[in-house]
């Protein structure tokens, strides 16, 4: 009963938080997909110093907390008179952080394809770009899709850190509602329900993809572990 009351009275606020969470996650996913592909390209670049830059990015970003990156954009840049609001700073941090994981997923996907694919491509007279475009990427895509899905689930969960830099997403609004009504348990239970509404179907879908795309028909000769 108290849940319905809360939803009736504060539904708009929950909804606005939910939309922000979803919006920030989608924008960060697209951003980190672009940045991650670029970083993966650097990492696999045939010229060692360029590859080292890609590797340094991945190793550094993966090994520091997301929150630290967010604080850098929110508090750190203020020193240079760049004042970003919580949503912008948070989205940037999520993008930079997630890009490192996506770059690794892309690299792993491409690396797990057997060398023979490249050799066969060259033997038939295709160029590097053509092999990548017509032979490697269509196959690697199947291997990359499930980890990408996982990253999206992580993004939805990780976007909750916006609440620590005044980004009005779901957790932030839940906190505001709990403080305004003193209905702490119901308010936070509804927040959990909204998160699970997004994350459970998504992670079930990722599991389905994992099972389907790693099915026997796609096992590549000498492909190694996926």
């Amino acid at each position: 009963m108290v849940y319905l009351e809360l939803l009736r009275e504060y539904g708009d606020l929950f909804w606005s938080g939910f939309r922000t969470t979803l919006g920030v996650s989608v924008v960060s996913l697209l951003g980190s997909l672009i940045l991650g592909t670029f970083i993966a390209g650097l990492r696999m670049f045939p010229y060692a110093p360029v590859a080292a830059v890609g590797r340094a990015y991945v190793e550094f970003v993966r090994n520091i907390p997301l929150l630290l990156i967010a604080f850098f954009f929110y508090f750190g840049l203020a020193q240079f008179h760049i004042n970003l609001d919580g949503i912008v700073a948070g989205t940037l941090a999520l993008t930079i952080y997630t890009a490192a994981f996506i770059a690794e997923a892309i690299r792993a996907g491409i690396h797990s394809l057997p060398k023979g694919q490249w050799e066969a491509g060259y033997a038939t007279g295709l160029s590097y770009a053509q092999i990548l475009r017509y032979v490697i990427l269509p196959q690697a895509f199947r291997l990359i899709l499930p980890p990408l899905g996982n990253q999206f689930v992580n993004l939805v969960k990780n976007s909750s850190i916006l609440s620590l830099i005044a980004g009005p997403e779901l957790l932030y609004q839940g906190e505001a509602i709990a403080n305004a009504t003193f209905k702490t348990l119901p308010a936070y239970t509804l927040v959990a329900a909204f998160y699970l509404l997004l994350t459970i179907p998504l992670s079930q879908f990722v599991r389905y993809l994992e099972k389907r795309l790693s099915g026997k028909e796609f096992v590549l000769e000498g492909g190694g572990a996926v």
Partner: protein
Amino acid sequence: MIETWLEALQPAHLNFLLQGFRITLEVALITIALSYAIGIVIGATRYLGVPGLATLFTIAVETLRNLPILYLLIFVRFVLPTLGIRLDPFWSAVVGLTAFEAAIISEIVRAGLASVDRGQIEAATASGLTRLQILRYIALPQALVRMIPPTVSQFISLLKDTSLAVAISLPELMHNAQIIYNGDPVRYVLPILTTTAVLYFSVNFLLSQIAHVLERRLLRT
């Protein structure tokens, strides 16, 4: 510029950061130990398919691993007291993080148990071992070894996630860094955040290299 950095990184400040890092490590170590124990029990229960209990654990695991860690920390620290359960920041952090990590580790346990060669299970069944005996003497010992690399990776995530406990005022590394740079935000933010990043990075990078070596060694055998 250099003077600002020297002032920001004066010994008293560095000491305070290291004190925070100690709390970070303490919370992470206690959490991983608890999560390991709970994760094995949950993973084994689901593997054996204990009626009722296995379903209950499945629901709990799916719920916990699909919620933000920050949510769990805030829930333990600020919502549980309304139900009469009051924990200090340290134990709130341990309980909140363990709730999440145990769910993740139970999945690692399950994957480890499932990866044990089927022929071995069949041979053990044929020689009259019970399912519990198979778990205890055949599946679990092999699964535990295979679990080592993913568990180390999980520990790295955990060290990073401990920073979320700033939300419940645990005096860990990130929290102490904030306290220092709030003293003079304009001049201290960058040096302090950079140093904090270096601290997290050096420990985590070392651990990730160890995980890498372990993985390769386990693959060889």
